[in-house]
């Protein structure tokens, strides 16, 4: 089930995040990469170098858009200027699907620029799903929502995080960008079994998977995207692709960014699990 309506019936393989320290390497060496994920907000501008580089990348590679500030879970309506610029970019990149986070980050027009956790309530699920539908209808592209790492839980929550995710995606009829590192980070911060989360996700809605590294502190784990992927996260990945199939996979590395080769090699480790799955099915 690699291709589904939530990723535009594509089968993209293993990609990495397009980050500025690698621009020169990519444009001059033209390495073979299945696809790049871009942070939409970095390119929602009027002109200049970032758009020029994006156009050069688009000439040679497949690009998928990933956003950080749509805030599907914010109680306020979508920002029209944001949507307008995002649609312009969607036309430019021809992204087969578009992802953003299942979180909130703005209220009364003020932006925190953070991925703040949702209260897992039916009211929040209903409002979030409505917003996902509105955005999808405006952008005319499939939407996948990503589970975030969190460090706080709310008294008002009426269900688990995975139940909330399911409630939202069923109501919105949208896809899931399953971030297995975020599942691991939150499971450690909130003491739940990460495999229970993975097993509970509707596999047919998984449009894409994120893998990444994180940082451990004395009393909690932070989602920092500045380390290689650890084994427990690879285990969650392995189980996810057993359930969902050979799904578009992306490694995020956003801080203390090493060489292009190191980042790409880390992403390609996913091939081990994908190959193992193919062999298992062949036996």
């Amino acid at each position, binding site marked *: 089930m690699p291709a589904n309506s939530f990723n535009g019936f594509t089968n993209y393989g293993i990609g990495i995040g397009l980050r500025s320290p690698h621009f020169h390497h990519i444009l001059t060496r033209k390495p073979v990469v299945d696809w790049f994920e871009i942070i939409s*907000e970095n390119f929602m501008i*009027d002109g200049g170098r970032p*758009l020029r580089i994006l156009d050069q990348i688009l000439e040679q590679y497949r690009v998928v858009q990933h956003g950080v500030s749509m805030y599907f879970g914010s109680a306020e309506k979508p920002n029209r200027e944001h949507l307008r610029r995002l649609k312009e970019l969607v036309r430019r990149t021809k992204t087969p699907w578009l992802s953003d986070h299942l979180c909130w980050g703005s209220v009364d027009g*003020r932006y925190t*620029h953070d991925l703040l956790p949702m209260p897992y309530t039916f009211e929040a699920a209903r409002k979030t799903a409505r917003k996902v539908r509105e955005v999808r209808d405006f952008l005319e592209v499939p939407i996948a929502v990503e589970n975030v790492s969190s460090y706080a839980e709310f008294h008002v929550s009426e269900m688990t995080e995975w139940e909330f995710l399911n409630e939202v995606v069923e109501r919105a009829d949208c896809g899931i960008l399953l971030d297995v590192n975020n599942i691991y980070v939150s499971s450690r911060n909130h003491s739940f079994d990460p495999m229970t989360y993975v097993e509970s996700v509707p596999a047919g809605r998984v449009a894409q998977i994120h893998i990444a590294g994180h940082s451990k502190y004395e009393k909690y784990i932070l989602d920092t995207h500045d380390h290689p992927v650890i084994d427990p996260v690879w285990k969650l990945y392995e189980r996810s692709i057993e359930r969902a199939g050979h799904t578009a996979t992306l490694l995020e590395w956003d801080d203390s960014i090493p060489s292009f080769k190191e980042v790409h090699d880390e992403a390609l480790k996913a091939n081990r699990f994908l190959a193992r799955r193919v062999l298992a099915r062949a036996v």
Partner: protein
Amino acid sequence: MNLLALQRTMASAVMQPLTHSENMSSIAPNGECMKKYAARFIKPNGRLTSFERLEIYNRQYWWRVLESLAADFPGLQAILGNRRFEDLSRAYLVEHPSHSFTMRNLGSDLKGWLEKNPKWAGSRQNMALDMIRLEWADIEAFDGAREEPLKLEDVARSDGANLRLRLQPYVRLLDLRYPVDKLLLKVKDLNEDSEVSSNTFRERRKRKQVLAAAKLKPARIFLAVHRVDNSVYFRRLDVNEYGLLFAIQNGKDLGRAVTDCFGKKAPTSDLDLAQVTAWFRNWTSFGWFCAGARKRLSR
């Protein structure tokens, strides 16, 4: 607590300034004890109290926005010094939190805010304001729109006096009281040099920057902040060159712009005409005029 109420409650706490020791304030936005405030909506766990869980987000917010502002205004930081710059940033961001989906716009109100709150720059108010204008122009020139540029032949073919040109949206014109362009270039050079350097070198670099700012004497300059091959450049302008461009940017036709620039007497001398011609040659070679003016040209 419904969704909107919870988000307002949490955002108010997250966006409240940290203490000087970078902890969450013990007083909540509504004046009550922050421990009680946090406990009302956030669950504790076996390792962290509600206060501590909220504090993670409070710290991340402030570290993120302060880092972003510092990255956009390294010249202002050099003028004020680190401590004063950080105090100014906190005060500004409390009054002007982000209202945009992108942190690129975080500093958009900084100039206006500092004009109303001069105490944060003290005796360096004018220099600080000039630097903010330059650094904001740098941001706008970096990613501003570029339209089809007009060639010199297009300008030459047109009906001169009534010609109404437009400057490219990414071109910014500045009339400054201090030569902050050189200071900013120096700061950028030093920052690039020290990207892979030790802490000792970085400290020395900061001292160099502050010393360079301290030596800066007032001297009126005119600048165009523009782009060539997607890189931003600062180009010094002659006072009349600036005046002519400024008038064009403000929608005046060429005849009126020249009159504004040279006074009622048009540049009839050979010297003046040669100068204006040379300016136009330069401006069009940089592609500063937009093709959007073509309709008017053909009229």
